[in-house]
């Protein structure tokens, strides 16, 4: 996103922010939040990303006092957001562990019989495009809810790989997982999204 703040107005904006001027904050929030949100959504789902951006602005009130202007304001804000997201990923990685020895979600694994054929085959036939499906706001909300409920590393794998089209190598580096574990994370997350969409299409419930 292009910025309309030129270097001189940025200096005076920073001064106003340091003085705790509320209208300056309003202006800055409008100017910089879209970029900050884009950075956050590199790592997190929609609602977690919005939360991080909100939290960051609150920290900025104090942190701006130490801002020396060596980098631009935008770069500085983006760095704060990225660090927060990484911390969040790191702390939650300890909490939820994905079972890397299983490729199938338990809920899906149950749907095969002893011979390995489908007992309960997929009920869905997709004949609409993703965009058409998302015009249904309820599905979009449901997707967001389920993305939020995914274990953090699964969600980040999905966001980085799928939504932001990062190379596997980069995703492995950011998340600090092996290539084969990344494959499991992606597959498990996709199955959950599949199960969610299936239920939604069938029952209209999330």
């Amino acid at each position, binding site marked *: 996103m292009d910025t309309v703040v030129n270097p001189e107005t940025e200096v005076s904006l920073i001064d106003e922010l340091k003085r*705790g001027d*509320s209208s300056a*904050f*309003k202006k800055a*929030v*409008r100017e910089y*939040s*879209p970029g900050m*949100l884009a950075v956050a*959504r590199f790592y997190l789902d*929609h609602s977690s990303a*919005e939360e991080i*951006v*909100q939290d960051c*602005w*609150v920290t900025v*009130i*104090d942190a701006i006092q130490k801002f020396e202007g060596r980098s631009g304001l935008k770069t500085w804000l983006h760095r704060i957001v990225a660090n927060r997201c990484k911390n969040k990923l790191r702390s939650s990685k300890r909490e939820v562990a994905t079972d890397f020895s299983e*490729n*199938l979600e338990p809920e*899906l*694994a149950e749907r*095969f019989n002893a*011979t*390995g*054929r*489908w007992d309960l*085959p*997929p009920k*869905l*036939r*997709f004949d609409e*495009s*993703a*965009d058409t*499906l*998302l015009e249904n706001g309820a599905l*979009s909300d449901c*997707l*967001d809810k389920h*993305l939020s409920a995914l274990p953090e590393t699964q969600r980040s794998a*999905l*966001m980085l790989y*799928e*939504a*932001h089209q990062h190379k596997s190598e980069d995703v492995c580096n950011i998340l600090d997982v092996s290539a084969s574990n990344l*494959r499991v994370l*992606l*597959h498990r997350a*996709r*199955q959950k*999204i*599949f199960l969610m*969409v*299936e239920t939604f299409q069938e029952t209209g419930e999330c």
Partner: protein
Amino acid sequence: MLMCRDLAEIASDYIDGELNVQKNLSVKMHLMMCRDCRSFIGNLRASTELMKAHSSGNPDEELMRRIDERVAEALKSRNAHDSNNE
């Protein structure tokens, strides 16, 4: 022979083109014969597309309003704190 369950296990690798030639071929063979697995692969692909479509977009006014509120509140409590100290 590749069973439906085996295919479900490696479905993402198939979609992303991560399978070796031999495995890839056996998936293709299975898909030719199995309607349910074709449907599963189709669904998984569609879910992937859905994710991509869902993740684009800009912050809305509602978020800006929430940030403004929280910032205003934090500024207020900070200013109150400062004047107490002076």
